[in-house]
């Protein structure tokens, strides 16, 4: 019980003092995760829409694989990205290992299936509603996908936030490919893992609360910008 109390105190102290190191860690966490969400959305949203609108031979298999990939342990993704980016791996020459770019790549791989799968479900329902109208209006394939993405944007924002939630709290993969290097690749989650390993539970809890606070703020900011919760109908 004591640890939780201490953790709350520690979180308050961290936020009030907001020292440079903590700020750096927070900024890097946000930068890595928001970039990963942006890239994963650029891939996942149209992919989900495309899967919802098109009928092709291996569609069921692709969707099943996508849903299965959502459950992939991040550590496995981390190991895979490590092997790809290692100097001894196929993309080693790019020198991306132990950089924020490597962490972004790992997170994109982790959350793209999630975003694609949720957007597929959303768009599929919307497509069922719009199907006849869009065919009747002779919309091209691209126009259909764009219209569905636009009109489904609020639900898709939820998909993106789900991706953000999974990415911002992820530790296994980014620990492997980022290396948790101080002043270079240390983010909130890897710092929490580090402090937990050191037995500094209160400090780790404090960082955890900062992480939650940031996740809540990002959610509120994005909902605010998207005005998601103001109109219940759309």
């Amino acid at each position, binding site marked *: 019980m004591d640890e939780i109390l201490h953790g709350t105190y520690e979180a308050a102290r961290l936020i009030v003092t907001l020292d440079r190191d903590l700020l750096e860690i927070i900024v890097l966490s946000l930068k890595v995760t928001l970039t990963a969400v942006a890239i994963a959305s650029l891939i996942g949203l149209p992919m989900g829409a495309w899967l919802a609108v098109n009928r092709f031979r291996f569609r069921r298999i692709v969707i099943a694989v996508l849903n299965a990939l959502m459950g992939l342990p991040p550590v496995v993704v981390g190991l895979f990205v490590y092997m790809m980016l290692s100097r001894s791996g196929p993309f080693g020459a790019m020198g991306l290992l132990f950089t924020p770019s490597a962490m972004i790549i790992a997170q994109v791989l982790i959350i793209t299936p999630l975003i694609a799968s949720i957007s597929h479900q959303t768009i599929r329902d919307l497509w069922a509603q*719009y199907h006849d*109208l869009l065919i*009747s*209006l002779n919309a091209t394939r691209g126009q259909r996908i764009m*219209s569905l993405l636009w009109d489904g944007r609020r639900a898709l924002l939820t998909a993106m936030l789900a991706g953000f939630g999974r990415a911002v709290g992820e530790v296994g993969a980014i620990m492997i490919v980022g290396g948790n290097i101080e002043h270079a690749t240390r983010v909130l989650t890897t710092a929490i893992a580090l402090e937990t390993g050191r037995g500094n539970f209160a400090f780790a809890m404090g960082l955890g609360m900062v992480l939650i606070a940031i996740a809540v703020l990002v959610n509120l900011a994005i909902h605010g910008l998207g005005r998601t919760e103001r*109109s219940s*109908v*759309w």
Partner: protein
Amino acid sequence: MPTSQGISLPAGPAGPAALGERAESGRAASILPLRLRGAMARARGKVLIGPIDLDITRRGLTIVMGPNGAGKTTLLRLMHGLQRLSAGEIIWSAPQSQVRDRQAFVFQSPVMMRRSVLDNIAYPLVLHGVARADARAQAAEMATEMGLGGLLDQPAPVLSGGEQQKLSLARALIRAPEILFLDEPCANLDGRATREIEAILQKAQGDGTRIVMSTHNMGQARRMAQDVVFMYDGKVHECAEATGFFEDRPKTPEATGFINGDIVE
């Protein structure tokens, strides 16, 4: 045997003004008349409708009638191209590439896009390359004409049933289609909304849009129809001018029963 051969129906009472307006829009030759020859629609080996022979002339307002399951909706969707043709021919009077963009369809349950009323109505214009500002200006004008002027910025899904169907009509008419198909557009509406819809349709027809509409409502059929297609069991049972159909009695017992209000199965 029901008669199902095509009957060329006379042109409706289109005024010269309407003709002029059509010509002004600078279009190529009309896509009408539309002819169906032995047209059939199948699904999973089962015949939905057909074979059907039918001519839709350049002008007029055709009402498609018949009991539930007779194939009215399928016939409209087949003509519009939403239902795949399994056999026979559907012949437009213009090349296939032109016909899709010059017709419109209003569904029984309105499809409301998750946008504002204004953006819903402007949508077909935007799809066809009209600049957003122009499209919205035209849509606003159309909406006002239909009595939706006060609702432009409302989200379409929150409109009442009648408003939603008027929006559907506005969206269907915004590109001044040569032919408009309507599938029981007033099925779920009250009398006032029905009257408003009918007025809009009369005006659209006056402006030169060919109208083909299915309905269950005998009163509506009598008020609106210039000619009638009576469907029964997937086939066009009778095709006649409205006056003849309603006043001189239909030729087949099913149609007679139907307009008399008998239960026709």
